[in-house]
């Protein structure tokens, strides 16, 4: 049997993307938790360029970058496909996945920065929500993937779960249900999917960890 290892670090949304894809397809794997302040020699060997998680190692061969990993998983294990088969529909899905990838770092910046930098991040997040509300969820779809979740839904996970937690302890208010009704429905639907619901990081724990990280980052900036 093929050996599959996933190097991750709680509560990275990019790692959760990969966990959900593996569980949706029923693929067994070994999970290795990394301490990002003390990265293992193995992680550095498997991802020398970026030195980041997630890294998927399949039969000793590493795959890095969460979206690259998701596409690899979808191609090797085609059950419960995560992308449309029609080339144009797939191009549209990939567009939104790239959009999510380009914009998600601003969600992290909300807790990693303050002052003007944080304001810029908040503006980028708001514009991202506007674009998704106005262009990606038209047509009354339950999920970006239609009746079932697909890679686009997974890619927007930071909007569904991480944003709310970060808003909570930073006091920012970017997502408001009445301003983004389609997104609001999508978030409820996405978090009700059993594989997602059973594998979401605990909000209180996450809040405590990210809040502590924020304090350390801002303290080291001013020192």
């Amino acid at each position, binding site marked *: 049997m093929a050996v599959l290892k996933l190097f991750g670090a709680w509560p990275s949304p990019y790692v959760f993307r990969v966990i959900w894809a593996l569980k949706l397809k029923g693929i067994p794997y070994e999970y290795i938790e990394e301490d990002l302040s003390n990265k293992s020699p193995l992680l550095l060997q498997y991802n020398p*360029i970026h030195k980041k998680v997630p890294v998927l190692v*399949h039969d000793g*061969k590493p*795959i*890095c*970058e969460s*979206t*690259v*990993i998701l*596409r*690899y998983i979808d*191609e*090797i294990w085609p059950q419960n496909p995560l992308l449309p088969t029609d*080339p*144009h529909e*797939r*191009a549209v899905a*990939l*567009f939104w996945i*790239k*959009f999510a990838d380009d914009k998600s770092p601003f969600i992290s910046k909300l807790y990693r920065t303050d002052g003007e930098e944080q304001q810029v991040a908040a503006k980028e997040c708001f514009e991202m929500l506007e*674009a998704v509300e106005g*262009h990606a969820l038209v047509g009354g779809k339950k999920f970006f993937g239609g009746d079932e979740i697909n890679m686009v839904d997974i890619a927007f996970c930071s909007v569904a779960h991480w944003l709310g937690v970060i808003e909570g302890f930073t006091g920012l208010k970017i997502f408001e249900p009445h301003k983004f009704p389609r997104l609001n429905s999508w978030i409820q639907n996405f978090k009700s999917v059993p594989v997602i619901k059973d594998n979401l990081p605990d909000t209180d724990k996450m809040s405590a960890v990210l809040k502590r990280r924020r304090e350390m980052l801002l303290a080291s900036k001013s020192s």
Partner: protein
Amino acid sequence: MAGELVLLDFWPSPFGMRSRIALAEKGIPYEYREEDLRNKSDLLLQMNPVHKKIPVLIHNGKPVCESVIQVQYIDEVWHDKAPLIPSDPYQRAVARFWVDFVDKKIYDLGSKIWKTKGEEQANAKKEFIECLKLLEGELGDKTYFGGESLGYVDVALVPFYTWFYAYEKCGDFSIEAECPKMIAWVKRCMQKESVAKSLPEQEKVYEFVLQLKKLFGIE
């Protein structure tokens, strides 16, 4: 399968050049439409409402946005000629990783080289060369990143060569001196008609950069 194909583009855009090369490699006829970015056409705004950017590939009236997605789309739809993306899933993942690396690093660092001065420019030059060296490492002894034929990474990276002269003049350094293997690879790519006819002259791009510097008040 062929149908109507339009590429909305802007001549110095390295992103637009990627799609031009992919279409040329496969010998696919298409209509090239030059956009004036200070006066974007209604068609562009309609076809790419989220970003309002070029390039946009319009196939039978349906838009494909983002150059890396266009190259993948072109490769999928016209799969019988000159395949660009590896057929092996692991090699495909490696190619996607490096295209992502090019996208994350090369354009932004290059922009910093011509837009900034002093320490910021020096740091950008240093990191730019480091990135090119990493790419040289990935190329190894291969003819192209794709092996014996042009591949996904080649198509994604070679357009930035047209901006190297501008980077060198603005940054006062020689890319060939630091990364001779990279320049040797570029020269091999330029021997291919699909690449040579899709790329503008470096001097023309440098003139364009000088105009931009004037426009933005950058010395």
